[in-house]
């Protein structure tokens, strides 16, 4: 089974939030409660959470726009539909002590809800702040890339609902090629700040299964600029734990032995 993924091309996102709605509908994800206005442009979802598996970010930027009388103050909107990255090296999966989080035959990362004991380790391990706990329930929830739909050969609900093909689903290798072509097109059209985010298998998480084309720095969209999978340093941690444990025993032994001499 080839690995599948999402390529989210934010340059064509119109901020309609159809992906958010489709995701909630298909996966029966609860609402957060009463609708609140955040004052953060058109964003009232705010973040990915146990109850929001897609999150459309809205950024308003002051820019110079050309006009008949020369450049003028204008506004541009950046919009981007964020989602779980389904990391190649996924910290959430690595640290889960129950095996509740697992990698599917499609290369995606999914929580088995009947096993999760709500320890919350994955929440602190995810370098993107994606996976989160539903407080009343105790367990954690996140995007499954519509595992049930993939199993029967259809595409995830968000990708199907997206009216502009900002969210593209498919074979990961093919998506990477498509994204490369697209970013070159944008560069040729003068969009120098366009860049791919998460597409490289050489990055800190071994490449994301859900990657993005952004029009500005990642942190502008609330994304970490250069995340690493926390387990990369685990070997060093265990060695140091071993050394510290040995030092503790040696110190105690010395305290007893020093009595005799």
């Amino acid at each position, binding site marked *: 089974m080839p690995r599948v993924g999402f390529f989210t091309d934010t340059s064509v996102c119109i901020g309609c939030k159809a992906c958010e709605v489709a995701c909630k509908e298909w996966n029966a994800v609860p609402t957060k409660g009463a609708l609140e206005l955040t004052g953060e442009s058109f964003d009232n979802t705010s973040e990915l959470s146990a109850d929001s598996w897609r999150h459309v970010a809205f950024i308003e930027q002051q820019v110079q726009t050309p006009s008949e009388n020369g450049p003028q103050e204008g506004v541009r909107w950046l919009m981007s539909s964020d989602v779980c990255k389904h990391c190649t090296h996924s910290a959430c999966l690595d640290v889960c002590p129950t095996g509740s989080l697992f990698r599917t035959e499609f290369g995606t990362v999914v929580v088995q809800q009947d096993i999760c004991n709500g320890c919350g380790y994955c929440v602190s391990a995810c370098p993107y*702040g994606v996976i989160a706990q539903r407080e009343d329930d105790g367990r954690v929830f996140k995007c499954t890339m519509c595992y049930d739909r993939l199993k029967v050969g259809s595409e995830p609900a968000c990708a199907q609902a997206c009216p502009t093909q900002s969210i593209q689903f498919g074979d990961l290798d093919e998506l990477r090629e498509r994204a490369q072509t697209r970013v070159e097109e944008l560069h040729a059209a003068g969009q120098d700040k366009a860049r791919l985010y998460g597409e490289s298998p050489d990055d800190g998480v071994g490449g994301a299964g859900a990657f993005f084309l952004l029009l500005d720095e990642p942190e502008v969209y*609330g994304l970490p600029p250069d995340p690493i999978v926390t387990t990369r340093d685990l070997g060093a941690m265990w060695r140091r734990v071993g050394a510290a444990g040995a030092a503790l025993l040696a110190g105690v032994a010395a305290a007893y032995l020093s009595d005799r001499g």
Partner: protein
Amino acid sequence: MSPRRGPEEEFTSYYGRPILKAPTWEPLDIAGYLFAGGLAGASSALAAGAELTGRPALARSTRLTALGAIGVSLAALVHDLGRPARFVNMLRVAKPTSPMSMGSWLLAAYSPLVGLAAGAELVSLPMLRRVAPIAGRGAAVLGAGVATYTAALIGDTAVPTWHDGHRHLPFVFAGSAAASAGGVASALTPLAQSGPARRVAVGAAVAELAATTAMERSGHLSTQTLREGRAHTLMASAKVLTGVGAGVLGALGGRSRVAAAAGGLALAAGSVCLRFGIFEAGRASTLDPRYVIEPQRRSSRSPSAADSAPSETAADAPTGG
């Protein structure tokens, strides 16, 4: 590497929102567990020494301390789960990539040994008395793991202060655990037998202070969280209590039982403050996106200046005791 923000660095974020999710863990449960687990593990090490060198009163107090502390630890761990009834799911798999999984197995092996060793102090069964020394020695070895694996437990997260501290935390925790165990044992044991406990307590307190200072000076931006707000209050209290406790115990603990008790309890209190301080600093580092964005920007611009550059200094690896 300066922990301060360079003037050339423009800081942008998404409406100032955190990038990471804050730990779901309750401070009382998890910081409490870090303390109680450390106290238990190091007490078991002391207990084995007491048993091997024929100090029955010291063996008794440390074995019972280990039992009480590990009981509290297990209760705190189970209480902190979102689905406590599913605690046993921890023992479904054994995953070396998950310090929590390794820790669960460690506790599963360690706790019964502690129970056997302490059981011999509580009920006089000849059979128990025969296995207690062996169980106690096993508990000592595993206890060293229980006291230190928690550094990998919190280090193996994306929480900036914890992850950046992963080189120092094992030594901070080993020192803090031994200082608290030595302190409690000094408080609970007659002077004639508590000499080794006092020496462990004082030596470990010095090691803990050195390791903590090295961690605070490691140059990571996230170490700022150890110097701000509630975390700072807790860390500063930890230092004062540990310093004063070690001083009192070292100077007067051999002569006065009252001084031994006061100094020992101050050390234990210092260890409590340290764990809560580190917990709180980590939490704070998830709330401000700066601690995620700035180091990552620096490391992506110049790999040589990566925030995680190894720093093997002498103060990096103090030995316990």
